């Protein structure tokens, strides 16, 4: 009998106990967006926790079936808006795999560098909200101080802070500037000392340890079965990082380590992410040193205004390209631009494994795009993890799984 089951048996055997239901969310300060949890409580013990999602569903998968490959790219910014560039990169890699294009080396390095920056930005938001949920308010603002620096660098790089749409299919949008690199150099030189500030406040703090150690334990086998990925899986001691397992972009050329947890509780997941900060800094530094000269976008990269091949057959009921578009369709005779077939490409975004499954029918639009978003699966697992724990532990668990509802609901 597991610890959780014991607790449930403990309270449900009590004749005096009275069960009552609480709907936590979708407007609740600690549910990170519009997550709703249907809780059944006995006193403060959670008997069952059923997450209810979909409040932010925008139908990105359906939308993308009517947009060209490059047009869908800005939509992926809106998945996990904490680390938009990582999503863009994952999307572009999937389309590149589908079309058989390879980005030039410089673009690969740039993407890797920027992805790691967005990983830092996303993890900063995670530590901020996680600590705030547990009550350490100051960490929140210290983390935002650093996040602001990264967002300003993104603005310098491509003109937008939150939704940069920086990578392009077959490369990146524009080159880095000298000012950008100087700022980045300064940032990564200073960042480790800032990390220590957060750790001074929470890492060894006895209250923090009490709130996180031994809470929300997920054994390794269960974690794999639940489909957890990213730091949430690695906290349970499973060595699965797509950057190592199926390296993409410049990850094979840089040297870094994957932090693995021991006991799989909230504290271990927290430690894993704190280590990932340091590894990201290491990767960025190596990318800056190794950044090769060369073009930043592949020669055979598709134009933004994509040539649409006529569909094999217009599906009954589907809207198809607009009349305006059919007027502009230009046939590409010399090159089979868009292969028919399907690919599944996943990348390691800050939240876990973000996968794109494409089915192409040979047109410039995906026939079917499916997004495997880590947050969706993590929220699905939340109910299993929270059962038998206390109300306050739900908050710690949500924080430690690092979910974002934009990505969950798509």
């Amino acid at each position, binding site marked *: 009998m597991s610890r959780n089951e014991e607790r449930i048996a403990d309270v449900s055997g009590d004749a005096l106990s009275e069960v009552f239901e609480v709907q936590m969310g979708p407007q609740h300060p600690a549910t990170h967006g519009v997550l709703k949890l249907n809780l059944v409580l006995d006193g403060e013990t959670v008997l069952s926790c059923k997450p209810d999602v979909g409040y932010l569903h925008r139908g990105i998968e359906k939308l993308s079936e009517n*947009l060209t490959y*490059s*047009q*869908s*790219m*800005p*939509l992926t*910014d*809106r998945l996990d808006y904490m680390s938009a560039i990582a999503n863009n990169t994952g999307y572009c890699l999937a389309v590149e795999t589908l079309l058989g294009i390879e980005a030039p080396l*410089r673009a690969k390095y740039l993407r890797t560098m920027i992805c790691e920056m967005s990983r830092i930005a996303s993890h900063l938001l995670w530590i901020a909200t996680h600590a705030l949920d547990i009550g350490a308010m*100051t960490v929140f603002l210290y983390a935002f101080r650093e996040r*602001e620096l990264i967002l300003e660098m993104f*603005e*310098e790089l*491509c*003109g*937008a802070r939150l*939704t940069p*749409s920086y990578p392009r299919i077959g490369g990146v*949008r*524009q*080159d*880095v*500037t*000298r*000012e950008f*690199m100087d700022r980045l150099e300064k940032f990564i030189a200073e960042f480790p000392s800032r990390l220590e*500030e957060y750790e*001074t*406040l*929470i890492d*060894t*703090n*006895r209250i923090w340890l009490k709130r996180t150690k031994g809470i929300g334990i997920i054994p390794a086998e269960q974690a794999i079965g639940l489909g957890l990925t990213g730091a949430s899986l690695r906290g349970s001691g499973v060595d699965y990082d797509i950057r190592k397992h199926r390296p993409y972009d410049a990850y094979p050329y840089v040297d870094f*380590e994957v*932090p*693995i*947890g*021991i006991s799989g509780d909230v504290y*271990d997941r927290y*430690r*894993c992410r704190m*280590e990932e900060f340091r590894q990201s800094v290491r990767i960025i530094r*190596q*990318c*800056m*040193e*190794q*950044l*090769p*000269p060369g*073009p*930043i976008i592949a*020669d055979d990269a598709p*134009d*933004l*205004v994509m040539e649409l091949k006529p569909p094999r057959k217009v599906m009954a009921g589907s809207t198809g390209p607009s009349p*305006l*578009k059919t007027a*502009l369709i230009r046939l590409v005779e010399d090159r089979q631009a868009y292969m028919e077939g399907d690919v599944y490409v996943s990348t390691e975004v800050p939240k876990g494994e973000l996968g794109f499954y494409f089915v192409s029918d040979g047109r410039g639009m995906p026939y079917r795009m499916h997004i495997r978003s880590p947050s969706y699966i993590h929220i699905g697992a939340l109910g299993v993890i929270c059962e038998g724990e206390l109300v306050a532990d739900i908050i710690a668990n949500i924080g430690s799984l690092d979910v974002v509802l934009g990505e969950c609901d798509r």
Partner: protein
Amino acid sequence: MIIQYKKKRGWLGTVFLVEILKGMGLTLRRMLSRSVTRQYPEERPEIRIGFRGQHALARDPVTGGSRCVACMRCAVVCPSRCIHIEYKKDEQTGVREVQSYAIEALRCIYCGYCEEVCPVNAVILTEVYEYAAYKRDAFYFDEEQLLKNWDRFIEESRYDPTKYVNPFWRPRGIDERTLAGPRRRSVPDDWKMENQWVGTGMTKSRKTGARCDVGGH
């Protein structure tokens, strides 16, 4: 790599609340240091060149109107389909004349695709970021309003309109020939591919490029 825990605190640390006092020391130190926030309306943020803000149509200094040639590339590429163009085609010459050009700013997702594909540097997302209004109608920018937006941008930023090049019109570090368009502005020198920043770890030495001075910034 297995994660390392911090050293467990000893009984002395437990009794004298060492880690809590350390944390309190940090917050006290930070209280005495300077705050990092910006007092917004008085202190303006520094907006970098290429920021994707309010939409505008660049005003042609010669004609006084927009440079748009109604090629429809922006309307086609727009993911949220917020650009509406109507044009009339001259049967003999084949030249298109813009009848109306409108952008629905509330539908726009500010991806910058439109300015990137524009062959004549007409449409632009300016660095203006304050354009709140009380009515939704105010965000339906017609051609006249878009030209006014451009005037406002030039006035506020003090760029020289004849020299200004937006990084989205001509992305840095991209080969000139991949972005063909005869009427496009040429790239400032340090945006050229030869002047790109190269890591020190590579054999090629770091090149020094002068900072691009665009207009009178």
